[in-house]
């Protein structure tokens, strides 16, 4: 019977219902998308570094585990010494440049033969390897997202680069230029910021890493598995704060809308609450009706939020293909629980207020 009462109330006030459901849906979709985007960017970046095929990353002393952040360049000659170590199959020097022109992304300056030796070589969708110093390779996702074809000119570091090839995504960056060219443009002659080291067998990773650590004391020597374990949102400075703030905002919106919705509902339905009280409904009964109605609205909002997040993810994928959104069931569950918690808190005071209404006053309410 209470379910009937709740359903009839919800259907009787379609605008109020729609606004409440929409607010919860926005809250849920916002949590899922913001968290999904942050996690997606971090794990996509990590997966692409893993996709290079190296077993060990060698970087200068004091370098952040995040590639491209503030490390001083190392002499390329170190790479030749690394390649001579036992159980090392190949070494690829690279300069990882943070590009902030038009968008924020990493551009790898690579020596194509050594990079191919580590990664197994690019798969070309169109075009081919570098021919000229100012040639650029882009991956297929970048090419689709920016409508780039072989022959297109792209400006980087105030120089025009010609796209010479479109390669399969997943090997480090989305854009590659020649190491020598990037060294010239950044004033880092014969320098590299990262060495990708590939062992003859991944089982030798720790042994090789220990040897490098012993030789290059103080350098940042990271086996790729360790790098992958570090690349989570917990380890990215400030990212968790950002996520927390966004979640708090989303939950705040849901809380306030449900609070206002239930508060105005109580005012609108003062007389109905008086009727229930005249029939002998207890305070618990009244509170239960209000909380269950808020929970019902939240449940519909959560479902709508899930659907909205899936649709928005597809839309975002179409417009910004380089922005991956990682949607996990864990975070869907968290988002649903947060929405539920927010709406129960938001409806509790109105429910309490309804339960405490004086029945005589409530029955006389116009």
């Amino acid at each position: 019977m209470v379910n009937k009462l709740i359903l009839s109330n919800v259907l009787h006030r379609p605008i109020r219902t729609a606004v409440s459901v929409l607010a919860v849906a926005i809250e849920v979709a916002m949590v899922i998308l913001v968290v999904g985007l942050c996690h997606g960017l971090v794990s996509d970046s990590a997966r692409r570094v893993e996709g290079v095929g190296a077993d060990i990353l060698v970087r200068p002393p004091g370098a952040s585990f995040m590639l491209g952040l503030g490390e001083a360049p190392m002499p390329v000659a170190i790479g030749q010494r690394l390649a001579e170590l036992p159980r090392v199959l190949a070494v690829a020097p690279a300069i990882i440049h943070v590009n902030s022109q038009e968008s924020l992304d990493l551009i790898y300056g690579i020596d194509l033969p050594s990079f191919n030796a580590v990664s197994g070589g690019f798969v070309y969708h169109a075009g081919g390897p570098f021919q000229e110093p100012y040639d650029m390779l882009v991956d297929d996702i970048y090419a689709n997202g920016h409508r780039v074809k072989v022959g297109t000119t792209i400006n980087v570091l105030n120089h025009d680069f010609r796209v010479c090839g479109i390669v399969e995504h997943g090997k480090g960056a989305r854009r590659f230029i020649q190491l020598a060219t990037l060294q010239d443009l950044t004033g880092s002659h014969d320098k590299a910021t990262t060495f990708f080291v590939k062992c003859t067998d991944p089982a030798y990773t720790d042994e090789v890493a220990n040897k490098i650590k012993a030789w290059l004391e103080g350098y940042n020597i990271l086996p790729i598995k360790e790098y992958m374990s570090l690349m989570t949102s917990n380890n990215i400075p400030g990212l968790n704060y950002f996520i927390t703030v966004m979640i708090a905002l989303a939950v705040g919106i849901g809380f306030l809308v449900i609070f206002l919705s239930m508060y105005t509902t109580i005012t609108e339905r003062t007389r109905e609450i008086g009727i229930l009280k005249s029939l002998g409904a207890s305070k618990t009964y009244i509170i239960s009706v209000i909380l269950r109605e808020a929970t019902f609205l939240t449940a519909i909002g959560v479902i709508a939020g899930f659907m909205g997040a899936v649709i928005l993810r597809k839309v975002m994928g179409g417009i910004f293909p380089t922005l991956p959104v990682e949607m996990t069931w864990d975070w869907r569950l968290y988002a649903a629980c947060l929405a539920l918690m927010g709406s129960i808190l938001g409806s509790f005071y109105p429910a309490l207020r309804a339960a405490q209404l004086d029945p005589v006053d409530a029955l006389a309410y116009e």
Partner: protein
Amino acid sequence: MEPIISVKSLTKNYRLGKVDVPALRGVDLVVQEGEFVAVVGPSGCGKSTLLHILGGLTGPSDGQVCIDGNDFRLMTDADRTRFRRHKIGFVFQRFNLLPTLSARDNIAIAQHIQGNGFNPHRFEAITRMLGIEKKLHHRPFALSGGEQQRVAIARAVICEPKILLADEPTGNLDTENSQVVLDMLRELNRTFRQTVLMITHNPEAAGIANRVIHMRDGRIISD
């Protein structure tokens, strides 16, 4: 036999700002089970306040109120709510049906709140007697005033309350519908020995009761 309603020296004051306004100034009343009592009097004489106190909707300021052996002085607000749920049925001038529920659900919700579950035999008997069995799927806005009041009466008596309290039950009805509703109340009183206490302005309505009490200025002036 112990009376079903026993009221002694009942007073009720309302506070308006810093001023106490007396609504009842020492009411004594005894009603036996199965009586049909009409309370008449001008507006503001305290009729509705008396009805609200007897129904446990509000507490007295002073005096003794004992309904079916329950002394209100010893009862908390929650006790009075429980008492109302099991012992009292209300019929209001403005019908007070839940607008979003059908007539059937408006009646059934009283049984749900009481907690004894849906009793189909009682439901059928009451709705047939009140002539609303064909209107049960309609929502209040689709019913005439008379039909709404009959649904309200059905809701009030579905849980077999000890006392039916009717607050101007014909106040919003035309003559024909008023007569139908009064006949229903009379029928309930006769058939089920339902104790009825009805407030009215209308002398004709009061005429169907077997006892008429007159009130003025918060006191009973004739019985």
